[in-house]
């Protein structure tokens, strides 16, 4: 009950505030929440969800998983090797600073215009927080822990699996969490190019065709989607990092 209050309290307040403040809105681009909610019900029918949201989710999932694998793998390599880090860091920073909308055409040159391109765009955008956090997490592994592993001949893959990754995992989790919402954002951006379905595409279409309440309802759907995914993420994180949360909570009043 209390948890529910925490989860729902603030959003309900904000929605109420929005509802009341917007109820008399004359502004074409900021319609009353009432209209938006009505549009929400009308727009996001099960067929619509299947036709537009499902493909988006599939691409999102594929891109996110790929980015996670790539980010962690690269991050470990870069974090462990100072020379490698020095060599590739500027190149990575270079690409990181390029806005995806201008990069999409280049990606299109190599990856075509199908789902592959969209997945690559998602990977390209959301790999950075994972990569950066992994690098920093790996670099911050406790020296005594590393020495212990070394002394006992724990090396190679086992060292990475049993020492480095777990130790860096809280920070990797931070990166994964950041990446999740960026992946959603990139899903939308990727669907602005060469798409003919998808949630992002639909929202942009609504915007272009001046279906403003529908557009807002799409944005709300994005938010809900992000919220649902982050709940799932929190669940997974809670399981994977049980030791960490336990350790952190251990001495706090129990």
């Amino acid at each position: 009950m209390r948890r529910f209050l925490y989860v729902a309290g603030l959003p309900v307040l904000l929605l109420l505030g929005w509802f009341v403040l917007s109820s008399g809105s004359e502004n074409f681009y900021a319609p009353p929440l009432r209209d938006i909610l009505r549009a929400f019900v009308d727009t996001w029918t099960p067929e619509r969800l299947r036709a537009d949201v499902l493909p988006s989710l599939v691409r999102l999932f594929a891109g996110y998983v790929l980015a996670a694998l790539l980010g962690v793998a690269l991050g470990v390599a870069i974090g462990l090797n100072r020379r490698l880090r020095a060599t590739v860091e500027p190149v990575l920073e270079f690409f990181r600073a390029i806005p995806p909308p201008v990069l999409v055409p280049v990606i299109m040159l190599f990856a075509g215009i199908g789902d592959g391109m969209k997945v690559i765009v998602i990977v390209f955008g959301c790999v950075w927080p994972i990569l950066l956090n992994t690098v920093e997490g790996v670099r911050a592994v406790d020296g005594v822990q590393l020495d212990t592993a070394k002394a006992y001949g724990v090396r190679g893959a086992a060292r990475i699996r049993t020492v480095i990754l777990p130790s860096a995992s809280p920070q990797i989790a931070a990166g994964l969490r950041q990446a999740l919402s960026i992946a959603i954002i990139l899903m939308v951006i990727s669907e602005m190019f060469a798409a003919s379905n998808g949630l992002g595409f639909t929202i942009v279409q609504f915007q272009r065709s001046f279906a403003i309440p529908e557009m807002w309802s799409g944005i709300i759907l994005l938010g809900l989607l992000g919220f649902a995914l982050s709940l799932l993420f929190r669940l997974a994180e809670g399981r994977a990092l049980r030791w960490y949360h336990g350790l952190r909570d251990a001495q706090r009043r129990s």
Partner: protein
Amino acid sequence: MLEVQGLRKVYSSGGREVEALRDLTFTVENGDLVCLVGPSGCGKTTLLRCIAGLLQQTGGTVTLDGHQVSGPPPGLAMVFQEYGRSLFPWMSVRDNVSLPLKQKRVPRQRRDELVDKALAAVGLAGTESAYPWQLSGGMQQRVAIARAVAYEPSTLLMDEPFAAVDAQTRADLEDLVRSLWQRLNVTVLFITHDIDEAVYLGRRVIMLSSSPTVVQDEITVDLPAERDQLHTRADPRFTELRTHVYEQIQKAKRLSR
């Protein structure tokens, strides 16, 4: 055989230069049990890390069985002074102890056996599934010891391994180390602050001077190989030896002032 030749180590980080070890030379025969004593901050941990190949020395050499040490040699186990930080908080006690064995590709069954035995030997049977941070300081230290013991190393380096346990447990653990040493013919290097412990445990005791560190003195403990807590400590020769060591350390500290 372990040979330390003119070992020197200077730490330089952030403008601060500390000569932790100036010039250390000594040898340890295979299967020997050597205790190292010396004032706090004299470089004992530094020495152990160099021997384990975890730290690059500034000068001199460390050779083990004729090979120059550049990384941790196989069959080496180490109990770190920072026992708390040397346990992996994301693994249960059992996993912490068995991880090195897994690395050594000890078959599963034998592994479980070794782990159970080692944990029982340090008085921790029943805590296998706990995480290290659910244990008291002394218990954590004993997990670290159990890990080293279960590994059945050929060289065992221990850095103040009994600092956090009570007197009774300490006595038990001393006997555990001696029995392990006798049973497996391990080469043991043991750092302690407790002079009685050094004399009780060691076949030799090496005394280090305070910083900048050299070997101050060295004795062979000519007590019988079969020792026990009651009789050995009552032996007049024991008292003689411990007084000698005590005086040397006093001298080392005085010199440095």
